[in-house]
């Protein structure tokens, strides 16, 4: 298995602190033994508008210097700013959000990252679910065509905890199918499975070769192995479907998460589980 760690824990996004520079984050994660990072493209690490061409080049160099790749980029959805709702009925927000995703495609291309992982949006009061779905689909086609030219794959995340547009595995498969694009895949986050009272192993088997990314956490965003969930079945399912992507750990959204510790514990635990797979 290949393991990656999502930078949200190190980047002051969900809680403003702790906050580490991207350089420091990549160095620490490489030392722990991670193969890659999933880079949240927000302040303080990689908000596209704050990155000069020199910054972009330096980040590319850190991959080689520390021996850790950027395998996936994610936008930061939600309030506390411009929103980034790709299913919104607000014209200004929709234009901005699509452009933001295209900026991420350009960055992915610069850093040889192959994947952008995102949730296709959410429904707000004043729009119907059907309307939001159609806007989300238009956004996907628009961004997907752009990404195709740059060799980047879009991975769609069902996010029941957060959204009302793409809640389930079937929603993702339907949206993929309707887009008609070859560079669209599925991903899922265990946290949303927990909220949907769904077995993550079933999601893995349902997506099979369409699975492009997976985000791991234990219950309540704890480090794998510390929240009571049994990771063996979902890890075995990934092996059974011959998943060759990264297992991305997305944990520790609170100020007291101790990023270095939670990153290390997660990796140690999952490697132990991996040894038991048949």
């Amino acid at each position: 298995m290949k393991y990656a760690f999502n930078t949200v824990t190190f980047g002051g996004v969900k809680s403003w602190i702790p906050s580490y520079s991207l350089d420091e984050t990549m160095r620490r994660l490489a030392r722990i033994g991670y193969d890659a990072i999933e880079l949240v493209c927000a302040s303080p690490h990689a908000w596209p508008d704050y990155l000069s061409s020199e910054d972009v080049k330096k980040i590319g160099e850190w991959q080689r210097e520390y021996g850790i790749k950027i395998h996936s980029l994610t936008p930061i959805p939600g309030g506390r700013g411009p929103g980034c709702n790709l299913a919104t009925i607000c014209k200004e927000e929709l234009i901005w959000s699509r452009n933001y995703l295209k900026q991420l495609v350009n960055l992915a291309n610069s850093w040889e990252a192959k994947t952008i992982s995102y949730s296709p949006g959410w429904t707000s009061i004043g729009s119907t679910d059907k309307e939001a779905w159609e806007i989300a689909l238009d956004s996907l086609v628009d961004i997907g065509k752009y990404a195709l030219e740059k060799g980047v794959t879009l991975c769609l995340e069902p996010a029941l905890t957060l959204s009302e547009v793409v809640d389930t595995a079937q929603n993702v498969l339907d949206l993929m199918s309707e887009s008609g694009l070859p560079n669209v895949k599925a991903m899922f986050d265990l946290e949303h499975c927990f909220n949907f009272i769904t077995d993550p192993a079933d999601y893995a088997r349902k997506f099979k070769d369409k699975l492009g990314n997976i985000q791991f956490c234990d219950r309540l965003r704890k480090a794998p192995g510390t929240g009571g969930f049994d990771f063996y079945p979902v890890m075995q399912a990934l092996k059974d479907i011959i998943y060759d992507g990264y297992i991305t750990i997305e944990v520790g959204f609170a100020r007291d998460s101790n990023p270095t510790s939670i990153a290390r514990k997660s990796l140690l635990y999952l490697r132990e589980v991996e040894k038991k797979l048949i």
Partner: protein
Amino acid sequence: MKYSFSTTCFGSGTTLLPAYSLEETMRILSGFGYEGVEIACHSPHAWPYYMTEEKRALVNEWQEKYGIAVSAVMAPPGGGPGCNVASTDKAERRFSIQLIKDVIEMGHQWKCKRLAFIAGWHRFGVSHAEAWGNTLNAIKEIGAYALERDMVICIEPTATDSNVVETPDDALKLIEESGLSNIGVMFDMQHAFFRKDDPVDYVYTIGKYLKNVHLTDYDRLTPGSGGADFYPVMQALKDIDYDGYVTMETGFARTTGLRSITKKAIDFLKNVEKSLI
């Protein structure tokens, strides 16, 4: 007392859903007796760069229509662009200062007199002194801009989330160093709880500089439902002749029933108010 409610929980501030339109939010709050609404200026309610002149004018119409005033505006910290005035990244710092100015201008259009100001935070490896210097320079620039628009900047100590201005004393020091007349202080009970401080002490310490207040029960629960005693802090506000808005900032989870918490909060506090001496 004049009661206000922060729009954060109505508009994707901490969770993406629930998300109500700003008009619906103002209508609901007015219906329960709120006289003010504190607008967190982010999507979907009021990200300045999505707010055309037409949309801004509508907010004034809604203030009239629903009888509710914009008590304060806030440029939201965290999330995508950060909005961190203490940042060592010059690009982020410049964007953040400009964003806050744009929020001030929008607030001015809505006849709002208060800006809730977050003093920023610093990452590992950056000294507190450097971050403080950045924040001080930012507040001087923002404060001068606000002064021309008759707006008061309310510095909020945010110990739970940040590390530049954590206490009322930090905020008062920043006021003194700024040398500006239109800088005040606000506080949020959550941050006092985080430090295991008594919010009552915050009221008396800040005194005449107190220009806005965020009330919440423990764990961001509705006042009256989490175990905190609101009588002493309300009495303290009366003792110092506080004449600003008492703003509720609660309910950050998706499971929150917004109509329920907004009504419970104001009903509870009005009852507490009756018992003040």
